[in-house]
């Protein structure tokens, strides 16, 4: 788990790193820590998975991935884990999760995100998933995103 200093570091960096030559030094100064401690703690959080990665977070639409489809599948419970792992391994799937159904409104228990420069490209990818699932798939749909309403990422408060 994290302590108060980690927490302060998260609050200071969750909106982004300062765009200055020595960003970790700038954060250290802001928090009253040594730059070495800031860097050591960030390395530790990266190693433990609290920080997934450090870098650029693009807006998919702006970089040409204008079709973003959430493919959803109703897969037989006894096969969903094995098939989910195989779908997650497809190179065009960026996220793949098993989630609970919400019957009767929502029969789907497997979610896989696919992205493309067009809807045609996304639906071709969905067709590949459909083939892989075979008879284990009872129903499916693809929900295209038409607008980003918010994308700030995690925000914890002080």
């Amino acid at each position: 788990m994290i302590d108060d200093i980690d927490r302060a570091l998260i609050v200071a960096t969750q909106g982004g790193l300062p765009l200055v030559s020595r960003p970790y030094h700038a954060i250290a100064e802001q928090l009253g820590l040594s730059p070495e401690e800031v860097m050591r703690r960030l390395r530790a959080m990266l190693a433990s998975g609290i920080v997934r990665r450090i870098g650029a977070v693009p807006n998919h639409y702006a970089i040409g991935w204008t079709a973003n489809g959430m493919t959803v599948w109703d897969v037989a419970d006894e096969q969903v884990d094995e098939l989910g792992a195989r779908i997650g391994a497809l190179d065009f799937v960026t996220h793949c999760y098993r989630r609970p159904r919400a019957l009767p409104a929502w029969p789907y228990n497997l979610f896989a995100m696919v992205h493309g420069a067009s809807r045609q490209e996304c639906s071709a990818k969905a067709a590949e998933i459909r083939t892989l699932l075979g008879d284990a798939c009872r129903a499916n749909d693809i929900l295209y995103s038409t607008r980003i309403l918010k994308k700030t990422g995690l925000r914890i408060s002080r």
Partner: protein
Amino acid sequence: MPELSDLDRKILAQLQGDFPICERPYAEAAAQLGIEEAELLARLQALLADKVLTRFGPMFQIEEMGGAFVLAALAAPEARYDEVTALVNALPEVAHNYRREHELNMWFVLATETKEGIAEAIARIERDTGLPVYAFPKEREFFVEMKLEARR
């Protein structure tokens, strides 16, 4: 939409992770791209200003800190869509929110510092909007690697 230069595409391809933790990380990253530190800083500033990047920095995994991430959805009536969007987005716990084509037409991710925070945020959204919220917590993660190169 701003045009992307070859350099922008290179930055997007190489800098979606592995940004160094050292005294002058931009200088180090710039050297790998074959440019000067000042040029990289200027490009990142421009990409952020043009909203090609939503952020540049660490991506945190709240679950590793004892918190929770949950995908949730609701069906907002068309006539109330903007109002419902504003109510949902007003919660700091809403990390992302997308409009999608389906009867469930608003899909958002809740990120809370405690597991209990999810139920509180959902209750708050249901109260504020008067609409039922469907929660889809992940039961199992098969793959997550959100790195896409520029396509244009």
